């Protein structure tokens, strides 16, 4: 079903190294119109490098990123990157101006209401809590009417409750607007709850280990669901393979 959707972004045989360290090698993945695509991988597997090269912040050494020039991209960074001398609303206007959207005050209003920040439009970032800043970072990405939003582990440093609420917010926006999302995470449960398509990146320079499709309605998903649970086990099996076996005799640990 999903395969018929249009590809809007494609990584083809991407390779990227830093000095001696090959971070990405033979990386192939597709992002489809209207989907939530998740890039799942443990720390150090090159997820952020995928994000940075797709965003044009870094160049690939080899391979290609294929996308239309007209494709409008937006970004949600791991740590909020807000201009501290601008208020919450001015931060949205700052990026909107680049696309002549600064007059869209209704859109801003909607996003502030949705994120529960409507009373903080005129607050400076230092006056907001960590969770509120991350919400602002999120709605900024949706304020530019992007075709594709990249999210680099946006929920990583948040508490359970904020994570849950933001996940709900992202799901709702995606469902209603049909916007395509490219979501990077190290958390298999998060990927299973959010994604239509999961790419598992395993270990540096190893390429995509597995592509997984999740067809179940997002609003009905629970991690205890047998179908999702089985996929979780599959993911964990891939991840476990990556962990080096302990190279000590367990008896020696008694010395500790």
């Amino acid at each position, binding site marked *: 079903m999903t395969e018929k959707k249009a590809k809007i972004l494609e990584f083809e045989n991407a390779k990227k190294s830093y000095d001696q360290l090959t971070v990405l090698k033979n990386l192939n993945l597709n992002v489809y119109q209207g989907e939530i695509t998740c890039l799942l991988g443990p720390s150090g597997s090159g997820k952020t490098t995928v994000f940075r090269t797709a965003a044009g912040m870094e160049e690939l050494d080899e391979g290609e990123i294929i996308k239309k020039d007209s494709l409008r*991209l937006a970004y949600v960074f791991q740590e909020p990157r807000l201009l501290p001398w601008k208020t919450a609303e001015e931060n949205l206007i700052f990026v909107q101006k680049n696309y002549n959207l600064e007059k869209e005050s209704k859109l801003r209003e909607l996003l502030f209401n949705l994120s529960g920040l409507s009373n903080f439009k005129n607050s400076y970032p230092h006056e907001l809590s960590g969770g509120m800043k991350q919400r602002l970072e999120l709605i900024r990405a949706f304020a530019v009417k992007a075709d594709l939003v990249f999210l680099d582990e946006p929920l990583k440093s948040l508490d359970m409750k904020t994570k849950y609420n933001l996940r709900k917010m992202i799901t709702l926006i995606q469902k209603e607007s049909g916007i395509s999302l490219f979501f990077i995470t190290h958390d298999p449960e998060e990927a299973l709850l959010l994604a239509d398509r999961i790419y598992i990146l395993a270990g540096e320079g190893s390429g995509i280990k597995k592509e997984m499709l999740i067809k179940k309605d997002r609003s009905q998903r629970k991690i205890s669901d047998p179908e999702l649970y089985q996929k979780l086990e599959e993911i964990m099996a891939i991840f476990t393979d990556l962990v080096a076996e302990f190279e000590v005799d367990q008896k020696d640990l008694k010395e500790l």
Partner: protein
Amino acid sequence: MKNSIFKPFYLVLIILILIWEQAAAGLNSLILPSVGESLRALHQIAVSGVLYSSFMITLRRTLIAYSLAVITGVVLALLMHRFKYFKRSFRPLITMIQATPPVVWIALAVIWFGVAEDLTPIFLIFIVSMPVIFVNLFQGIEDLNTELVEMAEAYSTPRLRIIKEIYFPALLPALVSALSIAFAFAWKSSVFAEFIGSSSGIGYQLSRANSMLATDSLFAWTIILLLFMIFVEYYLLEKLKARVSRWKND
């Protein structure tokens, strides 16, 4: 101006004045004039018109040299940030200028320009305060959060807007702080230069009072110098600092 800072200071000031008065009571006024004698000298300087004319001369020299120092310091900081080769070539030179004691510069200035009316003090003020502007601003530029620039670029923000809306506001607090520190240097160097190598201005009046053993006048001029510096630092610059960093977390 934060009154809360000034309240405890008033108390310290009163105690200092009392100690001064007490010490002066037991000493010859040539060594330490009393508060009253110093204020009388101040009054005389004021009514004779010397206060106004000398003050304006020193202020004019300070402002000319300070403005030149600000422009040069800002341009050098931007150039050295932009061109690494330029930085490697000239950064040590600024350190050398800064490390040279002001007394060497004034000695050289007197040799080069003589006891000139304006040139000697202007040269000294410039050479002492320019590195201060440069060092503070350059540090601010080097510490700039490039993540914000990266974010703006990812959102296709035009270069000019990045300069205007990210670089400029980010650097403004560092610039104001540089302006503030450099002004104190400029004002002091101005008086120092006039003391040694000029025939007008507050520094020259200090040198005259010194050679005539008019210690009360020496104190009177010092009071004027301090009052002006306090006005600039706690009134003008403090207001400016609060304005440019209103978005900061205190």
